[in-house]
């Protein structure tokens, strides 16, 4: 093992500057303090020592000191359970306000020992306990409740462990620089969509959605009567709307300016979110016109997310 000293030195070296992630839990980053059970354990040991001195118990000294040595070594084990882990931020999916935002953190363990019973904490929010296998990786998630639209920035989090005996608590405070985009909560229930307007002639020539029958969904007010599945209606079932695949559904423009002036900013945003979702479900291309700019109609989920993102970041007045 001629390379040991070099490797040893590099282990305790700071992570290379610039590339902040993966974030290595170096010696400087890991803090360790006894827990309350740890203090109780220490008190027990002191009492045991006094008893041994009083009754001159040679064997008692042996066991007391053995436990003492063991307890001190636990500190090293607890530190080892956390040290040299590499943390990387995961991908945060946007959520609608009210749903919990999941902040995933990837943990890599380059060492030869598994890391057992760790947890991420941020204030009252805690992840489940998890293990990181030897030379493996694990992803832990912190689920934050979201209350309002906008950007939810993950504060500094703490990764913590008390393994193996719970006598010491080792932790490290890390900033994963994660943020979640919180979309406005869509207005509940079906709403009316604006009428499709003329767009690309080439797409429109066959008329909207007449091609392949794809399935049924609940009827929303505003659906074309030509798409209502009258046959199910005749069987005394609730109104259903036929859906067609391959249909482009035309282009729908959602315009901030054309919305009812009685609605407040947040209500408008929530309504727009609902309309965007519904239009997406119909397979229509939706354009969004906001005071800040506009998104020309396009199909596909990415466009939808872009539009919802714009709603999430709409400046509050």
């Amino acid at each position, binding site marked *: 093992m001629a390379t040991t000293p070099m490797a040893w030195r590099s282990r305790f070296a700071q992570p290379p500057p610039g590339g902040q992630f993966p974030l290595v839990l170096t010696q400087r980053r890991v803090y360790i303090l006894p827990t309350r059970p740890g203090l109780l354990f220490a008190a027990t040991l002191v009492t045991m020592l006094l008893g041994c*001195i009083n009754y001159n118990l040679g064997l008692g000294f042996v066991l007391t000191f053995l436990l003492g040595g063991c307890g001190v070594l636990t500190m090293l084990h607890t530190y080892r359970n956390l040290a040299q882990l590499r943390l990387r931020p995961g991908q945060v999916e946007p959520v609608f306000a009210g749903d919990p935002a999941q902040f995933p953190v990837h943990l890599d363990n380059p060492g030869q020992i598994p890391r057992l019973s760790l947890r991420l904490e941020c204030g009252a929010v805690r992840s489940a*306990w998890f293990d990181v296998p030897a030379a493996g990786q694990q992803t832990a998630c912190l689920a934050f409740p979201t209350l309002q639209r906008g950007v939810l920035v993950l504060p500094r989090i703490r990764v913590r462990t008390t393994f193996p005996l719970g006598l010491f608590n080792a932790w490290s405070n890390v900033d994963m620089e994660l943020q979640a985009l919180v979309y406005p909560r869509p207005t509940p229930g079906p709403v009316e969509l604006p009428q499709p307007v003329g767009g690309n002639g080439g797409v429109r020539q066959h008329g909207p959605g007449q091609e392949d029958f794809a399935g049924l969904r609940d009827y929303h007010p505003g659906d074309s009567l030509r798409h209502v599945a009258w046959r199910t209606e005749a069987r005394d079932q609730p109104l259903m709307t036929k859906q067609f695949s391959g249909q482009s559904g035309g282009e729908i423009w959602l315009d901030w300016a054309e919305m009812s002036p009685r609605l407040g900013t947040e209500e408008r945003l929530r309504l727009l979110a609902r309309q965007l979702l519904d239009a997406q479900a119909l397979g229509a291309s939706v354009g969004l016109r906001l005071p800040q700019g506009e998104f020309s109609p396009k199909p596909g989920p990415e466009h939808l997310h872009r539009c919802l993102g714009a709603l999430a970041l709409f400046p509050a007045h």
Partner: protein
Amino acid sequence: MSQERGRLRPGILHSLTAALGAILLPHVTHLPLWCSAACAAFLGLRTMLTWRGQASPGRWTLVALALACALGIALGFGAAFGRDASVALLALMLGLKLLETQSSRDATVCICLGYFLIITNFLYSQTIPTAACMLVLMIWLTATMVSAQDRTGALGPKQCLRLAGTLLLQGLPVMLVLFLLFPRINGPLWGFPQANNSSLTGLSDRMSPGSISNLGRSDAVAFRVEFQSPMPSPASLYWRGPVLWDFDGRTWNAAAMLSTAPMQHTAKGPSINYTVTLEPHSQRWLFAIDLPRNVPDGVLLTGDYQLLAEQPVRARIRYDISSHSSYQYGLEEAPQALVRALRLPEGLNPRARELAQALLAAQRQPQAVVNEVLRMFRTQLFYYTLEPPPLGRHSVDEFLFRTKRGFCEHYASAFVFLMRAAGIPARVVTGYQGGELNPVGDYLIVRQSEAHAWAEVWLRGQGWVRVDPTAAVSPARIQRGIAAAVPEADPLPLSVRGNLEALRSLAFTWDAVANAWNQWVLGYSPDRQMELLHDLGLAHPNWRTLVILVVGLISSVLGALAFVILLRLRPAPGDPVEQLWKRFCAKLARAGAPRRISEGPQDFAQRAAKRLPSMGKEIAAITQCYIGLRYADPGPRPQEAHPKEVRRLQALIRHLRPGRGPPRT
């Protein structure tokens, strides 16, 4: 906090309950019955609740139970709140806490109490088997602690035990340093430890027919001796103990009033130096070879050369002492002592008195009387046996003229009686004779079976002279030990009989282990610590140097352990080929051609060859070999070609000698 306070898995609770039950089990023998029953009930209830998944009893029920237990202790033990009462209280509280246990925090409290109870077991027994049992239980408790902390349940019971064992094993060096060097003080800190056990065997201050032959059946160790000077012959090993002056016709008693006046003695011959480790026997006597010379501090030397400790010996003690091998003493004995050494009870043993008068009339000289009595023992049909027949009121008469069978106390008693009746001052000395050399530990074991009684007579011009009438009857007893002297049929302990060699050597080994255990674990006292420090070169250690020594040693031990423990944080070493490649890259990097982190071997070789043209060939060869091993098709039989190629790569890389650096142009 919800998860932290979360319920323990039932398996952990069961394991905890079982471990604590096992710890409490040895206490059953000295706890009051109701205490044991209550503990058993608590443990049983806990097991049932866990098994059924039911909640613990309410807080008030537990408080009521705790109060009831405390009341029971107060009534049961009364004002004598000592060791037993504390243990009982601890056991009951542990049972109650276990009943309440739901979370891992409760479990930690239980485990700490469990550790404490393990220690309390040592109040009653500190033998090696006890220690082994308790060590196992300690590992078990620690493993339970581990599994309580293993929140994801990733570890099986076996892995938990292994981790606990590893932890304790790693704690061993720390324990050793602390055990040996942690400043020891002589207890007690509070109260007085109660008498260990009053039923210990050993010599007492009285001797009646059968009292020593009873001891002869006991295998227990009286003391062990390490000789610093050459060991004297077994025949001269008379370990002097209680000296008995007063005879009531049946029983000899030690003198009520002891003269402590220093006595004059003349020493001849070399002195014998040795260390005695005395087992506790609840009496004050210490034993030494006739005649003790240097008396340890705090030990009283009486006028009749008994060694007395200040307190009854309740714990194993160790003392250094030396003796004269040849001596003369008591030439000028006080007159009242001589009078006392002639006193006999009136109206008893008339035939013995007659015999003594007759002998005196015939011989005149005291020395000749002594010889005549010894000759009588030798020539008449006297038997030496462990099972002498019982004696009546005139015990000496019956022994001398009727039964003629006896153990050493019979002979000593009869001899001294005859001497006193003949007007020669005499007394009985009890103690041990001989001993057994343990070749394993190179020390002498003296057992209770070696207990012996002999006589001393006072002769004008010679002082007190030792006379052993047993030696006259059975010289083998003195020369070769008791096993040679008593008949085969007599119930001697196994360890004394010599004919079972294998068993004996096993017994010797075991005794050596037990002796080391006693010396180093149980009897490791402040004195012993000072001795050790002295041997380590610290002549007069004070607290400061001791603290520095302990702290320094502990930190270096912890440093070494930290290195071992944290070493495994490093990634596992890759396969040998990869290691060799890394070494090669490191060599070239030192030569001025470092490999870029994502550079492939062939690209790197080309670039390095350009930078270090003098080594182009070697670099190409090594790279090709490496590529062949790592990336190429290993062919149909990879096991055969592979090691050879790895060795070739190793050789190539070893022979690569990069220059000081790249040629700067």
